[in-house]
């Protein structure tokens, strides 16, 4: 072939096309694939419990000379007292930066940096995490440091001060990103006065003391309140022995979680606008959604994939982005919560003058999926996607162990993933129609727009219509980021 090039490019083109096309199918739908069998790893085969009550999911993985541990701790900012909002997040960071009773934060940083290893801790809204990652040869030393951080954090005053300064500086940026403003204010509007959406202020951050952090740690960091995911280049039995030793001094204890008020899932229909001098409207259109334990979750996943969750194969993206060129980002999403009803919303970011038009297209798709059954082809695409991509969840050992750990954390049965594919297969077109009717409520939509209000209210010649056609417009004033007032 190479030599032919000297004869002339056109000859080569002609030759390669005629010889190759003979064996190449006209269309990819004519390709046939050999069957593929995948048996997912079973959670119960990897689960064990240490003598102090710590649950462990552990898997050997010799691909790389590394060891990873990820702990999930039952805690969260959800449990912050009203006057100390920010406590859990601060504890999650300073328990690592502030060092332990045996090593200062600075020395710990230095040692880990020298080994090219890391220990990270973080507390989110509904869970805490602590992870370590190192080269296999440094496992014993890093594990010792990791256990020390979990068991004996010092919460050193200088690191508390450093954290507070940074946290306050971060507060000042909280109204900068239109997307962040939209997500936050949308949730605040729905959840109302609830710990899920309480916000830190300069005063709440400054009011948190070292004793608060120590008490917080004492309350939640108990071995029987922690699930470990462990994977890497080790022998399983030896590693389990190392874990027993590392956490040997830690006693189990009863943990009582504070009671959290119920969420009153009452929708807030209307148009809500937040002023920002930008050239697009950032839009959410939606209402309360579901808990992740809802048995309809499989049908909802399939339905939302078709509606706006399956990127270009979904109706909203296809219409709003691909057909009309109105947006780069658009779709719909069920943001499920575990202990509380989550949210459901369609979203789009589009230039100010097409805000109304884009929203109206999304609302039309909401109506349509509640009105008529989806097509056989849409069902096939959605279900195939979930089934064929299922093995992705198990592509790294530490990822698999973490998946099992988080399922247990959320109280799902150990065989949850073993039955996942069967449950997706069982979803019918009738199910999709039923859940669309049940969980999408066009009359109860909260429409929130962050953008230049006056410009977003109006359409243009090609995209007529004004926002007040969708409901009464309420302007939301953003509170001062430092005081919350």
């Amino acid at each position, binding site marked *: 072939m190479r030599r032919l090039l000297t004869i002339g490019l056109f000859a080569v083109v002609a030759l390669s096309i005629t010889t190759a096309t003979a064996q190449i199918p006209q269309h990819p739908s004519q390709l046939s694939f050999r069957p593929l069998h995948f048996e997912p790893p079973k959670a119960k085969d990897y689960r064990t419990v240490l003598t102090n009550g710590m649950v462990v999911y552990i898997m050997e993985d010799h691909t790389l000379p590394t060891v990873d541990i990820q702990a999930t701790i039952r805690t969260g900012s959800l449990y912050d007292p009203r006057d100390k909002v920010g406590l859990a997040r601060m504890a999650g960071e300073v328990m690592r930066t502030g060092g332990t009773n045996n090593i200062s934060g600075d020395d710990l940083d230095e040692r880990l940096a020298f080994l090219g290893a890391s220990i990270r801790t973080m507390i989110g809204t509904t869970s805490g995490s602590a992870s370590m990652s190192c080269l296999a040869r440094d496992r014993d030393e890093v594990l010792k440091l990791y256990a020390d951080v979990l068991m004996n954090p010092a919460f050193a005053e200088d690191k508390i001060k450093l954290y507070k300064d940074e946290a306050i500086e971060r507060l000042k940026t909280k109204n900068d990103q239109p997307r962040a403003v939209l997500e936050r204010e949308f949730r605040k509007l729905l959840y109302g006065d609830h710990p899920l959406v309480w916000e830190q202020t300069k005063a709440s951050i400054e009011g948190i003391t070292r004793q608060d952090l120590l008490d917080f740690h004492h309350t939640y960091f108990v071995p029987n309140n922690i699930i470990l995911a462990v994977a890497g280049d080790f022998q399983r039995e030896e590693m389990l022995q190392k874990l027993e030793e590392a956490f040997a001094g830690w006693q189990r204890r009863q943990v009582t979680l504070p009671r959290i008020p119920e969420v009153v899932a009452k929708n807030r229909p209307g148009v809500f606008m937040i002023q920002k001098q930008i*050239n697009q409207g950032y839009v959410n259109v939606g209402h309360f959604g579901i808990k992740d334990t809802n048995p309809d979750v499989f049908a909802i996943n399939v339905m939302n994939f078709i509606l706006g969750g399956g990127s270009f194969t979904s109706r909203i993206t*296809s219409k709003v982005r691909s057909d009309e060129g109105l947006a780069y980002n658009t779709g719909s999403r069920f943001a499920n919560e575990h202990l509380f009803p989550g949210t459901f919303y369609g979203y789009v970011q589009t230039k100010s003058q097409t805000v109304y038009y884009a929203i109206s297209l999304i609302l039309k798709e909401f109506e349509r999926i509640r009105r008529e059954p989806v097509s056989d082809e849409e069902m096939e695409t959605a279900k195939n996607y979930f089934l064929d991509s299922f093995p992705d969840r198990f592509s790294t050992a530490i990822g698999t162990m973490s998946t099992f750990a988080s399922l247990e954390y959320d109280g799902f049965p150990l065989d949850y993933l073993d039955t996942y594919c069967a449950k997706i297969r069982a979803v019918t077109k009738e199910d999709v129609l039923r859940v669309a009717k049940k969980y999408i409520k066009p009359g109860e939509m909260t429409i929130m727009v962050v953008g230049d209000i006056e410009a977003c209210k109006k359409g243009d010649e090609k995209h007529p219509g004004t926002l007040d056609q969708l409901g009464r417009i309420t302007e939301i004033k953003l509170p001062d980021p430092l005081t919350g007032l």
Partner: protein
Amino acid sequence: MLTRCRHTAYLVGALVLFWATPAVYAQELNLEDQVIEHTLDNGLRILMVERHEVPRVVCHIYYRVGSVNERPGITGISHFHEHMMFKGTRTIGVTDFAADDALNRQIDSLYHLIYREKYWKRDGDQAKIKQWEAQADSLMKYEKRYIIKDDLWETYMKNGGTGLNASTGQEITGYYVTLPSNKVELQMWLESDRMLNPYFREFYSEKEVVREERRLSENSPGYFFREQLNATFWAASPYAWSVVGWDADLQKLTKQDMIEYNRRYYVPNNAVAVYVGDINPQEIIALAEKYFGRVPRGPDPEPVRTTEPKQYCEKRVYGEAEAPPSVTIMYHVPPAGHPDAEVFRVISGLMNGTTGRLYKKLVKEKGIAVEASAFGGGMMYDGQYSFSGRPKSEAGHTPEEVEQALYEEIELLKKEPVPEYELQKVKNQTEANFIQSLRSTYALAARLGRAELGLGWRDLQKSLERMKAVTAEDIMRVASTYFVKDNRTVGILYRAARTPQGRRPR
């Protein structure tokens, strides 16, 4: 007091260990043993790594094309082209190609008229423009009967494709999908088709999507400032404009521009296909020969011609935005492959992280900044290295104060040799990070593919070796050579004042 004593004791104990830790991580992992390579007659490179944990294969294809290959007038075309690659080909996304093509020719000739009237004339005939636009609109509506919406994307999705995406950078454009291991042939079919049969359907509506994407960037805090700073830093090099391009160019780009750009850069001899996962390399090679082998080799594209001239004078840019105040100090440095390239990698290691010099000095010790970092180095055709920081504004500190503190650290690099312990720490970290970065099959494919189009995938490991050879003297020499006043551009951003309504004063 008691605790402090204990800390010291630990540190002394630990220091002994520091020296005892040998730094030979790289020998535990040799890419050479894992990567299988093959070259087709048309010049397409194939790289493969077997990973059999799950029956999935990461399939990436990279082209050596990005915004540096553009010129004023067509900025943003690389990225726009990437979008067009999802709108179908002569075979995909269309029911009746001949009919669709005929319509497209009509639409294109209308837009030819519209663009000339709109953009070539000072006062074009608005009525005519409107009339042509209405005609084009109705033709585009009519065209929908021939279009199979997002056919390529849907075909991948219904076959279990994940990680489905594409990205355009300054130098490289990549197309990604992860598939079940029995369906790699599907990727070969679709990607070789994209290479062989490009067709720029729905060009005008997709242009609006790209412009919305640009608006999204514009609304990210401080975007306009960063864009101007970058444009100021580069006087001649095409690194001066952002990947998304200038909006005026996007508006005026034509279908013909797109066709010419495609012909020049989307040739097999300018690309690499990477497969990482549950593969049989012999099977992959056979499939690649069959599918990609049918694509003719093109003329080799000329590398970027313009290199940045020497600067000779400091440049400063001041701006305001609804964003945290900051300072950025940018220096011109040599391109990747230059003998000094790895020295910058070591300097980044010295500067960054909680044990890095910048955080220690500016954040912890002086307490004037909340964040400070240094990054950059050689790129494909030129190089750039920046120091930046954000002042602790609540305590009244300013970007200018942070700027001075950054200069002090830069001067220290020139004057004092870096202690051996610190140098060793950086080298250990860089190696450990390298190993960690190979865990994900996706990241591995990306590293290999991108490196292959630069200095070649083998250079990933060779560069590590060169990095380990960097000495304290190298750092002093490099800092003194490049981190000088006449070679820098400084950007100072202040937070914009806001009225109570959130509207910026004009």
